[in-house]
């Protein structure tokens, strides 16, 4: 036990140093925070514009979609904070940074995850938190243990699902040298998808984002269970409770992709 604690202390020290190093360039840090917040605000404005131009889209009103947007956005921003820099793997491979990771007596994935901690991503989650709060107040929710449990479950599973997407993408990067953008389709495409009602998706996307990369379970399905709004036709309304199954599946896929990718890696000749 003491040994585990000592190991964790090492990671904590690394992460604290990353956080301090960003805050030390104050002007740049502040501009970064403002920029990240601006991007979040603009993203929300797009949703707001679309839903105020019409009464409802895919069976969801603006008030109801606030919950979907808020839950998905908060979960994604937290996942982005923890694992978003897995995106930089191709850069690390090319620069030889990754080879250094192999020399240290720590798991490569753990080193990759702790290699950066972009605090500005926290600023961005403020927009999601605000949308979620307003959504929780304005919607007609039957409060109880069930409702709170479902919300917490959705947030945790959403976070796990999005983190797993980042790791899956990183694993695939070992095979996709020069094709890094391919994984954006399900990482950032998945994020965009998760903020929408799945009722508007074409069938093919429903399969992709409902099963393979199960981001529909991050926000839309739990919200549709919570509000009792009929989700995708033919699917039961209690499906939102299955978010942990989807999260588990995402983790298994991510683990397989990462392991295979790592085995495939032969160094960049650095």
């Amino acid at each position, binding site marked *: 036990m003491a040994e585990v604690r000592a190991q964790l202390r090492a990671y904590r020290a690394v992460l604290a140093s990353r956080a301090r190093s960003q805050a030390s360039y104050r002007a*740049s840090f502040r*501009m*970064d925070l*403002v*920029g*990240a917040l*601006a*991007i979040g*605000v*603009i993203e929300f*404005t*797009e949703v707001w*514009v*679309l839903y*105020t*131009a*019409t*009464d*409802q*889209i*895919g069976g969801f009103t603006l008030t109801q979609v606030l919950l979907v947007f808020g839950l998905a956005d908060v979960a994604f921003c937290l996942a982005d904070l923890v694992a978003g820099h897995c995106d930089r793997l191709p850069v690390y491979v090319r620069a030889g940074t990754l080879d250094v990771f192999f020399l240290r007596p720590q798991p490569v994935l753990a080193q990759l995850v702790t290699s950066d901690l972009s605090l500005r991503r926290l600023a961005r989650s403020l927009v999601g938190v605000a949308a979620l709060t307003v959504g929780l107040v304005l919607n007609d929710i039957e409060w109880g243990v069930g409702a709170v449990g479902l919300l917490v479950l959705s947030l945790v599973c959403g976070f796990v699902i999005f983190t797993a997407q980042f790791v899956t993408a990183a694993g695939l990067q070992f095979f*996709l040298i*020069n*094709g*890094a*953008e*391919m994984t*954006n*389709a*399900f990482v*950032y*495409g998945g994020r*965009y*998808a998760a903020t*929408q009602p799945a*009722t*508007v*998706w*074409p069938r*093919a*996307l429903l399969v992709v984002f409902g099963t393979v990369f199960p981001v529909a379970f991050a926000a839309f399905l739990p919200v549709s269970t919570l509000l009792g709004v009929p989700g995708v036709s033919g699917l039961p309304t209690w499906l939102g409770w299955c978010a942990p199954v989807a999260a588990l599946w995402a983790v298994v896929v991510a683990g397989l992709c990462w392991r295979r990718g790592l085995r495939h890696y032969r160094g960049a000749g650095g």
Partner: protein
Amino acid sequence: MRPLPSPARNPYWRFLVAGVRGQSAYPLATLAGLTANATFGLLKGGIMGAAVDSSGGELAGYSAATMAAFVWLGQGMLGSVNFWGGSDLQNRIRTGDVAVDFLRPVSVQAAHVLTDIGKGLFALLPRGLPSVVIGLLVSHMALPPDATAYALGLVSLLIGIAVSHATVYLVATTGLWLVETRGVSVLYMSLSGFLAGLYTPVYLYPDWLLTLALCTPFPSMMQLPIDVLSGRVTGADAGQHLAVQLGWLAAVLVAGHLATRAGRRRLEVQGG
């Protein structure tokens, strides 16, 4: 008398060609970009189509067909215009390499803008056309009504690409004063796509926001070319769109030129 230089030896022509060739060297990157593009297109098409449906088949003058055209033409243009605000020049200013650019006997502005336009033009083939083909396969998107609309649309598209890269050049020149321009890029990234009509047509915006958008060069990069290409505006209206675009192109080019002239006196190359 010296012989007239052939266009192939003109340095500016070669910058344009170099941009095209640089981009064609990475076919896998292009395929990857197309996959991401198509996924976003399907998602965007789904939500925008549902929005048109739920408002009774007509939303801010868009039918299901013209909305599909908006989505897929927009996706097709994404590889050719720059909405993320970063550029080669931005990096070269930060690292000091730009000092070499200033020593060359060519215009720094023309060299950078033309190279980027070249990249953008090439991207129309592997990313633009396939996006439109996917759009045609999965939706009933509207097409230009006649040959004139195609011709005007292509001109409008070309000017749109030029406005985009000339504006990003202007953004990069702020580095001559600031050196580190990440914050400026992030600001550009958050505003440009939104005001250009990347996510939803700007005509859906409330009046004040629409007016604000039309007072910037951003709609000239995407919304206006899409209007002309999809036949949403024709004849004299299309001509007016082109005039607005040309006006913005001239404005950002002149601003970029002035900023380069003023900024090169301020430039301090870091390091040794």
